[in-house]
């Protein structure tokens, strides 16, 4: 199957600086792809290129396998893009949302009905007659979203679409939109800094850093098997430590990490140095040296070094021969009576360990 939208050998420059270089990138029809990455990675630029708004210095953008040359208007009209800033016009909210439909010459009656439907969906029907210039940040973002969704395009490109929304709205809207996207088979690419949102909404995730795509793949895979250290950091892998391979046989790898030994499952792993990656939620903590009875193969003793509360979740930084970050619930922490200096045992499965081979 040809990809809905793809890039080939794309390079984007600003003055001297090369800010994006993508040899190959494909978005399948109907998929929802999240783009993650540090500030200044080039995410917005990538989206601009996909939206046919920035012609790359080199390379092609392809829609349905066809390189885009000229004909932009008709192709652009099959897409809609929402920018990082709302950029509303100096007219009513209603008129702003209607804009793309008017530009396409949609008949007035249909226009009104669709606008009404999407205003309601984004809970801004109350603002319909207000000026687009006097809205709060979140209100403006909703209008900007409605303005794109009302077009019901084949391809949606969203740049940090929910960054200004309040949390309950963000969650409910996220769910609702996921439904809409799935129903209508829209192809969507969205940039976000919220990895939970990416995890919840995206089929696949691309991680961009320094203008290059470091990894693309199914969400779960990118989250659990990051391709490099940077990706690991951006998908929330808490522990990334250099490790020496001691033994490797039958898919079981034994590693020296700091002063501890760790067992990992990794088929066909041949490097003799690696980065060990562990997600915080894959680590179970027990007080003292009473490991929780379980199928985990790794039980490391250590001492709590730092505790950070993130709402219901608590991040525990412990020294287990190497610095390790575990995530436990607030309740568990209270029950376990953990505090700085408490001795603990950290347990995790050999399958929870992901190894990035290092070829020094």
């Amino acid at each position, binding site marked *: 199957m040809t990809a809905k939208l793809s890039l080939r050998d794309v390079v984007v420059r600003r003055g001297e600086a090369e800010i994006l270089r993508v040899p190959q990138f494909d978005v399948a029809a109907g998929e929802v792809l999240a783009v993650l990455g540090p500030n200044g990675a080039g995410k917005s630029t990538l989206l601009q290129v996909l939206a046919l*708004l920035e012609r790359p210095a080199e390379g092609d953008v392809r829609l349905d396998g066809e390189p885009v040359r000229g004909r932009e208007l008709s192709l652009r009209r099959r897409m809609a893009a929402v*920018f990082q800033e709302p950029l509303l016009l100096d007219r009513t909210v209603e008129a702003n949302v209607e804009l793309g439909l008017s530009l396409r010459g949609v008949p007035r009656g249909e226009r009104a009905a669709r606008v009404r439907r999407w205003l309601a969906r984004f809970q801004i029907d109350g603002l319909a007659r207000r000026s687009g210039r006097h809205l709060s940040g979140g209100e403006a973002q909703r209008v900007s979203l409605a303005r794109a969704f009302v077009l019901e395009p084949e391809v949606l490109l969203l740049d940090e679409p929910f960054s200004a929304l309040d949390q309950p709205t963000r969650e409910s809207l996220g769910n609702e939109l996921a439904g809409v996207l799935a129903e209508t088979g829209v192809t969507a690419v969205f940039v976000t800094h919220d990895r939970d949102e990416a995890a919840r909404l995206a089929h696949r995730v691309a991680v961009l850093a320094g203008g290059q795509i470091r990894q693309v793949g199914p969400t779960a895979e990118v989250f659990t098997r990051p391709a490099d250290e940077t990706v690991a950091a951006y998908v929330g892998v808490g522990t990334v430590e250099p490790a020496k391979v001691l033994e490797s046989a039958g898919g079981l790898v034994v590693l020296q990490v700091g002063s501890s030994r760790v067992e990992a499952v990794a088929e066909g792993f041949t490097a003799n140095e690696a980065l060990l990656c562990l997600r915080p939620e894959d680590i179970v903590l027990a007080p003292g040296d009473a490991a929780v009875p379980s199928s985990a193969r790794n039980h490391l003793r250590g001492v709590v070094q730092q505790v950070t509360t993130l709402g219901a979740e608590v991040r525990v930084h412990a020294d287990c021969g190497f610095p390790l970050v575990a995530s436990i619930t607030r309740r568990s922490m209270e029950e376990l009576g953990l505090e700085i200096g408490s001795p603990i045992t950290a347990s995790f499965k050999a399958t929870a360990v992901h190894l990035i081979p290092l070829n020094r």
Partner: protein
Amino acid sequence: MGLIWDGVREAFRILGSGDREVWEITLRSLLVSGSATGLALVIGIGVGAALAFRRFPGRNLAVTLVNTGMGLPPVVVGLVVAIMLWRSGPLGSLNLIYTPAAMVIAQTVIAAPLVTGFTVAALGALPPRLRPQLYALGASRLQMLWLVLQEARLPLLAAIMAGFGAAVSEVGASLMVGGNLGGETRVLTTAVVLAARRGEFAPAIALSIILLTLVFLVNLVLTGVQLRERQS
């Protein structure tokens, strides 16, 4: 000062009496300068949009030239246009010298740089990401231009007024290419000059007041249109 009051009184008298000639001259001013402004808008918005939106070598020079054009003295424009249109000139065969059409040409030359300059300023001040956002919503080039012009409608109103103001108030070029022929090419400014030459200061002031009233009314109408549009 007394003269000025006399002029004001005279202006009301003339307007009240419905002097046919004055109405004719006023209407001619409006038509000639209105047409010139219209042409200047077409040119000024076209060139202004290109200068505001495109990056090309020589763009800075072009902007400087436009700004320089704001200093084109009407007499000079009049002289050059006249030289072109005189029978001995390259366009003499068109028989345009001393016609309202010649005045429209000269006034267009005078107004266009102002309109262009204001347009560059107005469009250049829009958020730089606005244009791609409009394209992203499916605007064609022309639709984009139309939308950004509407976004910049307040400063563009100033552009229109500056253009119309320059056209309707200039006198050097109109005299030179129009000839101030009674009943043919006499407009308000040239009539003012004539009255002033004659030492008839009160009528000169009266005509000036009529001219300013005209400008003010055009202004009011345009402002009104612009406000109405914003509401709708």
